[in-house]
């Protein structure tokens, strides 16, 4: 994560939204990815719409997290990784030579399975990225931090202890703080890699409701092992198996009448 904090970042105003609601914001074309000689993704072609929640599902090792990490080039941080094909966001190839990876990761935020707040106060966790992006005035910071904490449904729980350590929050609160931190710099896309898998049912329900609220503003791609969670929160679902995209379509169809037998067997728990 450290390299995305290098202060050579464009101001917030340059964040560009190019696609219209309902249009394809993310386009993957024949994406293959190799860890050394091992092929983890096989010719994945997929178009994801703006301001919808897309779930990536599939058994462990199917490549769903690998593909998710391609979308903000997190795989660049891993040695011996090679990718073929193209991924376009807003029509621009994110692997083109002139792409600023820092700028890309500003547009494509990420929330991980294990919440990872900075060992700082709640306030500073959200303020950190804002300061890097040129927000200096305290009144501006205060206003934006409150806005983000409200948007992540955390404000009411932390308003009276903003300067307490973020590490004192519960797991669910920490995860919502990470979401507040991710949305602070106004990304277009939020990637979530099993964001609720370590949380209890109540905290999970809050994260799910938050995701459904956030899709009014953001395009969300989520990896989950929980079929019912995918059914509850996603509009579109992609099922992966051993590096292949088996089926992609409206979540309602994937969970009530999938076209592929492998999808049927997976979502009904026969394997995986």
């Amino acid at each position, binding site marked *: 994560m450290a390299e995305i904090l290098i202060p050579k970042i464009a101001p917030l105003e340059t964040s560009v939204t190019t696609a219209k609601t309902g249009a394809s914001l993310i386009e993957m074309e024949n994406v293959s990815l190799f860890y050394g000689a091992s092929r983890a993704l096989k010719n994945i072609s997929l178009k994801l719409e703006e301001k919808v929640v897309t779930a990536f599902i599939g058994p462990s090792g199917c490549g769903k997290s690998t593909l998710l990490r391609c979308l903000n080039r997190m795989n660049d941080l891993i040695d011996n990784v090679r990718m073929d094909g193209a991924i376009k966001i807003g029509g621009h190839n994110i692997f083109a030579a002139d792409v600023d990876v820092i700028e890309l990761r500003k547009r494509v935020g990420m929330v991980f399975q294990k919440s990872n707040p900075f060992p700082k106060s709640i306030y500073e966790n959200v303020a950190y990225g804002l300061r890097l992006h040129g927000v200096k005035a305290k009144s501006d910071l205060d206003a934006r931090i409150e806005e983000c904490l409200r948007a992540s449904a955390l404000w009411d729980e932390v308003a009276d202890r903003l300067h307490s350590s973020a590490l004192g929050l519960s797991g669910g609160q920490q995860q919502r703080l990470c979401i507040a931190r991710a949305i602070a710099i106004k990304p277009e896309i939020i990637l979530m890699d099993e964001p609720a898998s370590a949380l209890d049912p109540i905290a999970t329900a809050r994260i799910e409701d938050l995701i459904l609220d956030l899709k009014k503003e953001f395009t969300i791609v989520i990896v989950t092992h929980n079929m019912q969670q995918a059914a509850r929160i996603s509009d579109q679902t992609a099922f992966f198996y051993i590096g292949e995209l088996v089926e992609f379509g409206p979540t*309602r169809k994937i969970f009530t009448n999938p076209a592929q037998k492998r999808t049927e067997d997976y979502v009904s728990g026969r394997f995986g």
Partner: protein
Amino acid sequence: MENHFEAGIEALRQKLLVMASHAEKSVNEAVQALMQRDHDLALRVRADDDTIDAFEVEIDEMAILLLTKAPLASNLRLVTVAMKISQNLERIGDEATKIAKRARDLSQEPPVKITLDLPRMAGMALVMVKDALDSFVHRDAAAARALIPRDKEVDALNRQIHQQLAEHMMANPDTIGRCLHWIVAAKSLERIADHAKNIAEEVVYLCEAQDIRHTLKN
């Protein structure tokens, strides 16, 4: 932050209530058309049946989508009960349509000179439907249980009316066609009471998680 899942459950409940109000209205109007020989009203009841059918399909779609999201406990019961209640409401709508068809035909012919206890039977069936739906709205298992025995009274009235009409037909063969209309209408009222009883049984399951179907037979 909105609780999206609960909002989905509430939307299903509201949809079912709207469907119930349509079904109740259809039964009321069908009975009114029959008793008052109102041809136009009978035709309108028949036209409304498509609306009730569409609600059944829509409620099933909503319920299936909610089931994919793994509702539990009372939410699970509500979703499954909603599907069963909507099926009963759809059939109540069908029976109202059957009564309306008979009302339409009877309104074009001279009245049969016979005194039947059909207004009382219709009143009982109507109140059963209303009470069953009220027990759903208020989640009142006691009220639901209380209406179930009334189905037997409606059955008895139906048998009595059937017997009266059979005797009348034997004595007055020229009225057979019209009497058959009345027999069918009475049978539909009896079926409406059955569906009201079914709904009441589902309300008991919804409230108490107890399946009381087929346990109260004489």
